[in-house]
């Protein structure tokens, strides 16, 4: 039975929740932030400065708080979200929340990108020392990581941990190694680090090769030409496999079969030995017989590896598992790989397996040994390192993509990330997709002639992706199509699409083709999108005459490819992003004609300032917030370069994504008119659950 209770989803309540959360989270933000100690129900203790973790540990009851939690999961300053909430207060007298939330959405999808691109981008620095080759110099990476860890780990360790990460980065991957390496390290981060309690943090280090958290079940020292094999089943043949029956008719038969099994095992191990195999890695426990013959033949054995460990090894060396041949022959075993060394590694009197794998991919295997007095601290450091890796992955993500797809992709990843990380399985609807979707529906419905379709097509893209153009051209053309009256439904249908698109955008395909492939995944609209594609192709190739106004659009879209947000955009830390955006938003608001746009811009601009205010809370005199703010505004007005009191860089991409997620969340919260509490255990489908709440 469902017993439910409804309460008016007042914004007042939401504000209260947000304020309480802000109080907790704000003490963790920035370089002056402090630690929070959490206990798990099991009694373990955990240290954290990660907003998402903290909110999770709080076991929040209020649904709005849970909504906030989903957002803060992945980003650095969870505070911002609450801040905007708090600033929403000034707006209380307005009763039409729905209307405001639409204005917010419009702002997020149409204005924000424009500001970012037109104004903010001139302040962007690049993390790459040379933009063309995308080479990364150590010092700039250090600055970036130091600033990141400043906000993530305890202040007595952040320098050390960021050095560690920096070392790890340069030891494991080259800049040219691309996104694949990030994916590999990200997927297998748990396997790539070893936690050792009881040692000071400063004993943490990076070890060349792979360290497995297992001991050898058989260890035979070996050198020279060493090869290894991976097995996923027992080498010793068994009497019967599953689904089969073995009928024993006589004692002699039993003895012969046992003898045969023994001889077979012996022969296989001998054969491995003859092929110079010195290491056997197994995902299952091997019988005593196998271990014995391995030992006799000088083969070391590591057993019971987890499937993740096996897949990591396989990804590094590109080796498929060895299957004991049925009909035995003396031919060469195909699935072996060379290893540099394999030896036991002793960390704090515990033995580990240390493998020198020869990588066949761009990743050069290294493991991180994380030391700390307590497990909770090690876990925090592990989390922070993993987070830094994700941040870098985002920063590098757009490396191979052109500008148009970049923005698409960016949105795609944002929803992808939320989907992956949040335990609440809250899915932030993807703004980009949502608004792309709508015009298409319109196009289909209206069924205009080809030229007009193209026009809309281009318009839509210019709205989303080249906000610069959009600012001038947007309003006259597509105002009706983009007012989100019922975005919600479309968004729901598109969540799976965004995942696929994300994958698709990895290909180096030209803009238009890329989009068409993305749409083709939608199945029922295949024809339409192809039609669309053809039309645009035609316009591109020759018949430009009828639409002279479109040509400059095309031109700008091309030229912006290089100048707009490329991979690796960074800004100096210390609230620079917020102050800049604040400044330009205010400027924009002044120029704005529509009152609601002005209002939204003002509110967001002011809310943004909350972050630097917290950051400069402890500073006094010349470095206090008002001083810094006035200096920055003055510099902007007189077109002088901004001077930052702090060293360190932060990723613009992360900030931008955070802001869009926050706006999304806010939009949602404002449209809620009722909170229904359901006292029932969540159903299996988690997506359903999160929609119930909202």
């Amino acid at each position, binding site marked *: 039975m469902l017993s439910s209770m409804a309460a008016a989803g007042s914004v007042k309540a939401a504000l209260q929740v947000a304020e309480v959360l802000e109080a907790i989270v704000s003490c963790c933000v920035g370089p002056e932030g402090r630690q929070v100690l959490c206990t798990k129900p099991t009694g373990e203790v955990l240290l954290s400065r990660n907003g998402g973790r903290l909110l999770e540990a709080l076991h929040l009851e209020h649904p709005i708080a849970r909504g906030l939690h989903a957002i803060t999961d992945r980003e650095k300053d969870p505070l911002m979200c609450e801040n905007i909430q708090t600033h929403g207060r000034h707006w209380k007298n307005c009763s039409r929340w729905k209307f405001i939330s639409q204005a917010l959405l419009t702002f997020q999808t149409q204005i924000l990108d424009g500001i970012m691109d037109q104004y903010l981008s001139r302040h962007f620095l690049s993390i790459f020392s040379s933009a063309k080759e995308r080479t990364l110099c150590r010092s700039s990476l250090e600055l970036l990581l130091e600033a990141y860890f400043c906000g993530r780990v305890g202040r007595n360790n952040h320098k050390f941990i960021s050095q560690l990460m920096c070392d790890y980065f340069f030891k494991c991957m080259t800049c040219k190694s691309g996104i694949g390496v990030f994916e590999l390290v990200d997927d297998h981060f748990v396997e790539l680090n070893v936690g050792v309690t009881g040692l000071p943090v400063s004993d943490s280090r990076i070890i060349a090769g792979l360290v497995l958290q297992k001991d050898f079940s058989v260890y035979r020292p070996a050198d020279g030409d060493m090869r290894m094999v991976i097995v996923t089943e027992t080498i010793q043949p068994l009497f019967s496999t599953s689904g089969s029956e073995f009928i024993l008719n006589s004692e002699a038969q039993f003895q012969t079969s046992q003898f045969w099994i023994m001889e077979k095992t012996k022969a296989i191990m001998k054969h491995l030995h003859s092929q110079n195999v010195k290491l056997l890695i197994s995902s299952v426990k091997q019988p005593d*017989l196998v271990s014995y013959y391995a030992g006799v033949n000088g083969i070391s054995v590591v057993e019971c590896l987890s499937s993740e460990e096996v897949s990591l090894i396989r990804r590094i060396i590109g080796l498929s598992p060895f299957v004991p041949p049925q009909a035995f022959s003396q031919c060469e075993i195909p699935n072996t790989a060379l290893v540099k060394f394999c030896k036991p590694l002793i960390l704090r009197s515990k033995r580990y397996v240390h493998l020198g794998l020869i990588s066949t991919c761009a990743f050069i295997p290294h493991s991180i040994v994380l030391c700390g007095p307590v497990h909770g601290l090690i876990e925090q450091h592990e989390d922070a390192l993993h987070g830094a890796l994700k941040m870098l992955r985002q920063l590098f993500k757009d490396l191979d993509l052109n500008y148009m797809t970049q923005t698409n992709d960016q949105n795609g990843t944002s929803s992808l990330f939320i989907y992956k990380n949040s335990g609440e399985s809250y899915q932030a609807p993807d703004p980009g997709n949502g608004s792309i979707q709508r015009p298409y529906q319109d196009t289909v419905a209206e069924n205009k002639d080809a030229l007009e379709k193209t026009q809309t097509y281009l318009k839509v893209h210019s709205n989303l992706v080249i906000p610069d153009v959009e600012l001038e051209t947007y309003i006259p053309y597509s105002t009706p199509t983009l007012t989100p009256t019922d975005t919600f439904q479309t968004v729901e249908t598109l969540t799976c699409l965004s995942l696929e698109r994300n994958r698709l955008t990895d290909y180096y395909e030209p803009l238009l083709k890329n989009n068409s492939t993305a749409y083709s995944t939608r199945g029922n609209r295949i024809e339409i999108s192809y039609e669309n594609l053809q039309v645009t192709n035609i316009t591109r190739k020759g018949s430009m005459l009828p639409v002279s106004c479109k040509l400059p659009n095309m031109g700008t879209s091309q030229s912006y490819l290089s100048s707009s947000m490329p991979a690796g955009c960074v800004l100096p830390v210390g609230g620079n992003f917020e102050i800049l955006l604040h400044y330009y938003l205010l400027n924009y608001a002044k120029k704005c004609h529509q009152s609601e746009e002005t209002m939204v811009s003002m509110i967001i601009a002011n809310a943004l300032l909350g972050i630097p205010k917290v950051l400069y809370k402890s500073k006094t005199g010349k470095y206090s917030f008002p001083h810094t703010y006035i200096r920055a505004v003055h510099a902007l007005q007189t077109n002088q370069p901004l001077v930052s009191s702090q060293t360190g860089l932060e990723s613009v991409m992360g900030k931008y994504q955070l802001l869009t997620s926050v706006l999304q969340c806010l939009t949602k919260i404002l449209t809620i008119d009722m909170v229904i509490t359901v006292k029932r255990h969540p159903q299996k489908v988690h997506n359903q659950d999160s929609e119930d709440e909202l």
Partner: protein
Amino acid sequence: MSRLEAKKPSLCKSEPLTTERVRTTLSVLKRIVTSCYGPSGRLKQLHNGFGGYVCTTSQSSALLSHLLVTHPILKILTASIQNHVSSFSDCGLFTAILCCNLIENVQRLGLTPTTVIRLNKHLLSLCISYLKSETCGCRIPVDFSSTQILLCLVRSILTSKPACMLTRKETEHVSALILRAFLLTIPENAEGHIILGKSLIVPLKGQRVIDSTVLPGILIEMSEVQLMRLLPIKKSTALKVALFCTTLSGDTSDTGEGTVVVSYGVSLENAVSDQLLNLGRQLISDHVDLVLCQKVIHPSLKQFLNMHRIIAIDRIGVTLMEPLTKMTGTQPIGSLGSICPNSYGSVKDVCTAKFGSKHFFHLIPNEATICSLLLCNRNDTAWDELKLTCQTALHVLQLTLKEPWALLGGGCTETHLAAYIRHKTHNDPESILKDDECTQTELQLIAEAFCSALESVVGSLEHDGGEILTDMKYGHLWSVHADSPCVANWPDLLSQCGCGLYNSQEELNWSFLRSTCRPFVPQSCFPHEAVVSASNLTLDCLTAKLSGLQVAVETANLILDLSYVIEDKN
């Protein structure tokens, strides 16, 4: 089906350190650990109302593993000390006391956590670099060519654990045994990378401590009846050993995932026992003298082997497998079929032995790094304490082998270090502050808190109301009995400093430990002869103490940095 219940919201508290409850729990823990510290430390009796025996101890590892702490901050503190102890065995109480003292002292100052943490870190690195430097005045090199310093090291550990209840003579005896056991684990002709062997501690409760002994090789406990049944081997050469890790009981276990159908009249048992007897024949033809099995040997095979004058011992257990493999040089056999000739090993001799009421089968190695330390003590709790102490001592010796230095014990290192830091922060604050935003006053405050935390650690060595002094030349510790007459002549009252390196006959000035005195440079030059001649030094393990110092400061920093505690109430 389990009942589903909604999760309770967690409890969130801000500024945990300022609450009264945390302060009292911290001070209770501090009282517990300080009262245990040192040779004259008081013992704690821990008993659990739900059962188990009563544990009498003064060691941090036993103490903390029995204590049940509930507050998250205390959990962090005890967990980090336990982790330290499990990696270094020694200096657990030192770490605990120092950490508590630091938290307490720093809180009194009321500086911002950022400043405190930053400066604590600087002071820690100052200490570490001093203790590791050549000019360090409180460490001495360990000479492995003589046993003197090593014995001092072991003796210091034994005397600091009063719950072992050892007399002076027993202490000497056990220290010598521990050192012997350690030396037996060092391979004789090792080049480059050495791999230490293992000392197995064999319990023998209810005996006098003086009956403890060390034997090379492995002792396997057996009942007297079993032992009588074993026939004596008369052989002048080494004995050939086969060591089985697989079961020899004759059960067919692993037949795969499918089904095995046995026709009527077919006896698998017969088939297997045939197989076992074949194995026995092979062992005989290979001239094996001794068969050891981790698991069970089938009685018929045992009988068969005995008939052919082969000693068969089963149920060895997994713990003895590794030492046995190492000692005999065998390859554990996992096959019932053909056995490779190179998987046999050897022992020099075997014999039976009786210690107290227990009977043992003794395997004597040719040349190996495995030895058995038969440890006796009067009762269970005292034995447990002694065993822990022996393990600590063996571990400390291993650590010292890696880093051949020892710190002066008896509190002298701490007072010396405090004097050094005071001097350094007074005379050269710029080098510590460098580019930091902290002021010199802040540095002075924190340095004073740090030094007095160090000195309070040694202050807790004294439990009988005596006074503690420090000299103004070496910065060593001197203690005066409580009942000594009023200050008349210091040199008469004080005979030796805490570590035993200096005596009061030198021209020295003293001051009370907690009194304010002007900073001085603690002298570091001690005559090398003094070290050699002093046979009764109190020494500490350098590696353990360094790590203890680091863990204490890191943990204190961690706790001081907490702004919220979120407790999950589920």
